[in-house]
């Protein structure tokens, strides 16, 4: 686990490139990771040694890039990382003996997930940002409860599917009931909040866990079929979705088309697909080797940011400009290592609940990365969602560190039992 120190020093070096004055910053986060590391050593001594350093590395890359783009946001993000690490430690402490008792509370988790998803719809505290109603706010404090709902949902699904996997495989409607109820509710909530990325993410996690539990490929096929039918249906009735698909298929137009933002005819690249197109330019500009961290072009000549939302949804486009193909590929490889370790944990786990939990958490992590980066790269329609650990956003960082704690707990138990 000394790798943690190595990664931390990379972080210091990176910070140094940007500004020597931020060394104290770097030192502080080094100590923070050291603390997280010690907590992990104490609570989950047998846990996978790669997961925490990878998370640390990703968070460091993210913080560095955010610092480079918006120094003020970097401070807030730093505060959130402190909160996240604290919650990470708390989770490990509370569940260090046996996390499997969570299984007994699965319905509570299921309902919590729905409740969390419903929060933004409530008046007074709900908040709409960029066309999706995903936020709750208490004064200046903003939070996206959906991020935590994801974890609660995975715990529920893992618990329920573990219990019912044999009967689920037989396909009796009675046993599907609670699953479908929770599922339909979640989907309705998503439709109401217009969080398409979230919907895709939850549906993907659901299908993957269902497959692990029942080993019935037919369910996955049926699920995908349903999803396609549903997607076409939603596309037909929702202008918001139609717009996303149009932007995805034809981001550039040769002649002016109606621009709903200004009400005037405009080229689409100057209107709805502005963000996507500018982000693609940013990626393309990176070329093989990139411009170098801090050397990329993120502002216009007048000093305005080129890509709106560069620190949140579009942080990957700035990173791939500054790090180039080599750096971007390395970043994705880091995500792949995380996924590999997560899946390894699921394989080593002894009981069904742990396997489903680890597989669900890991697949959710991978799918979330795919949805946002794939959207940026025009592999799929773009939907706003954070890049795990890297994007600016408190709820995301907190949720991902809790997710990490979950994986460590499963891994600790699996390795300990394997040693016996």
């Amino acid at each position, binding site marked *: 686990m000394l790798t943690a120190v190595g990664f931390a020093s990379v972080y210091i070096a990176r910070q140094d490139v940007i500004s020597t004055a931020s060394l104290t910053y770097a030192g502080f986060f080094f100590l923070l990771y050291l603390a997280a590391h010690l907590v992990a050593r104490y609570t989950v001594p047998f846990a996978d040694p790669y997961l925490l350093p990878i998370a640390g590395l990703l968070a460091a890359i993210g913080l560095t890039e955010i610092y480079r783009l918006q120094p003020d946001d970097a401070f807030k993000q730093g505060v959130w990382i402190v909160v996240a690490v604290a919650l990470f430690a708390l989770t490990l402490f509370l569940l260090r003996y046996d996390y499997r008792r969570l299984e007994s509370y699965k319905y509570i988790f299921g309902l919590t997930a729905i409740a969390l998803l419903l929060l933004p719809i409530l008046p007074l505290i709900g908040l709409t940002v960029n066309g999706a109603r995903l936020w709750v706010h208490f004064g200046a404090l903003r939070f996206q409860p959906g991020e935590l709902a994801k974890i609660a949902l995975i715990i529920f699904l893992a618990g329920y599917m573990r219990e019912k996997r044999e009967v689920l495989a037989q396909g009796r409607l009675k046993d599907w009931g609670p699953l479908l109820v929770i599922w339909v509710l979640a989907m309705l909530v998503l439709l109401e909040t217009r969080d398409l990325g979230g919907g895709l993410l939850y549906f993907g996690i659901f299908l993957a866990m269902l*497959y*692990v539990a029942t080993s019935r490929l037919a369910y996955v096929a049926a699920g995908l079929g349903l999803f396609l039918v549903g997607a076409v249906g939603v596309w037909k009735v929702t202008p918001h979705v139609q717009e996303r698909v149009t932007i995805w298929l034809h981001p550039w137009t040769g002649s002016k088309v109606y621009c709903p933002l200004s009400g005037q005819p405009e080229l689409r690249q100057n209107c709805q697909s502005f963000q996507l197109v500018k982000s*693609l*330019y940013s990626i393309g*500009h990176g070329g093989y080797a990139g411009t*170098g961290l801090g050397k990329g072009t993120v502002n216009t000549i007048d000093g305005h940011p080129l890509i709106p939302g560069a620190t949140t949804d579009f942080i990957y486009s700035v990173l791939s400009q500054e790090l180039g193909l080599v750096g971007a590929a390395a970043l994705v490889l880091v995500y792949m290592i995380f996924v590999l370790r997560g899946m390894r944990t699921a394989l080593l786990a002894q009981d069904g609940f742990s396997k489903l939990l680890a597989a669900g958490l890991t697949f959710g992590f991978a799918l979330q990365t795919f949805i946002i980066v794939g959207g940026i*790269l025009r592999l799929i329609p773009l939907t706003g969602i954070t890049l795990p650990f890297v994007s600016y956003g408190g709820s995301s960082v907190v949720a991902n560190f809790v997710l990490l704690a979950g994986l460590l707990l499963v891994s600790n138990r699996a390795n300990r039992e394997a040693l016996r």
Partner: protein
Amino acid sequence: MNKQVSQVGVAALVLLAALIVGTTYWQTWANAGLADRQDNEIRLVAQFTIKRGKIYAADGRTLLATNVKKKVAGQTLYFRRYPTGPLFADVVGYSTQSRNRSGLEQSYNDFLTGSNANLDTVVRSTLDKLRGSTVTGNDLVLTIQPGLQALSRRLLQGKCGAVVALEPSTGRVLAMATNPTYNPNLIERHFAQATRTTAPCGAPLLNRATAGKYQPGSTFKMVTASAALDTGRFTPESPFYDPGYCIEYGKRVRNAGNPEAPETFFNLNLTTAFEHSVNSVFCNIGKTLGAGTVLSYADRYGFYSVPPLETPENERVASGLYDHGRLFRPKHPDTQVDPGRLAFGQERLQVTPLQMAMVAATIANHGVEMRPQLIERIVSPGGHTITHLQPDRLAQPIKRQTADELTRMMELAVEGGTGTEARITGIRVAGKTGTAETGRANINTTWFAAFAPADDPKIAIAVVVENQVNGFGGSVAAPIARQVMEALLR
């Protein structure tokens, strides 16, 4: 269950691997397409992070283009300044954010930004990038002499026209001035002001020296006489009879002067006809040779193709016959073109000052046409010369003997013919005047093409001045040419 976990794991990894493929696509395959997009500001901004190379006049000291450093949002950007203002605007052009580029700033952008493919430059730019230091472009040193350029522009002051001066033996452009012109420093922020002009002819952004199309008038007789002598059909002593007009298509085409009593020379030879620019004689030569032969000699001089020069291709035009604004190459010249009027420079001929300067320089250089060149050398920021001008033989349109006979005729035209205003004491000057009617009463386009010294030419020049009321090539353009030549030779 483990099998399924593995399969889900593989699916997750495939999704992530697709991201690497996608990123690769945009950063390599699609990159060029993205970079060329109009609305791609990154490329534009990135250009301003490069310290462009400086541009100097021939003396290596007079700075024509340099950079001003500005810090914007933590980024150091370099903006262009042109210390000489309008003086070199048409050649150097501009490099701005809102209007992109023109002139050498456009055509030599690669060298100026250090992105040219020379090994030396590639290594240096790459090192600069890796080190994180500012990429610095290569400097250009032009062939244009700042004193000559300034004089040329001063002489054009208050007029519309252009001056092109070449070194006949090498093709070096010694001066290339045009009026009206613009101040390149105003292009970025005050475009309207930059393009405003009090001159009646307008179009200050047009480089009249290379893209201005004018009726050549009698200066085209240099080409007709080339054809006459070079084909061997005529000699300088060939006798003619001039009744004051020539007959074409059954009608009289009169000489210059009062239409009721045109200049009339009766018995004369070709030399005298050239000296006094007698239209009827050239009309008859044209009829004898045929329009095809005359045009083929124009072709040899480079008409009908865009003259080579380092400025962007769209800032130069070809000379030749024009029909409805488009270059017209007749399939059957002997029936489609009036040979008599063609021979003395009318018909639908349109020529550029650069092309006429090239004709004069070719005659001066004993019939060998040199490629006109603007760039003396390109120097790396370290002071190392990357390339330097190498004189390039373009063609030999006429025999040496023809060129020498023409030189003699042009000398006589200055000594005692139409071009006496170009005489310089102690120096033999060869020249040809031209006065083209514009179709509006008494308003002429005036020309003078010349070179000097006639026995050892150091400068060939073409001067055009537009819209001169009762003005002639000999009275308006010739004195300008004389002063420019004198400034170089003295």
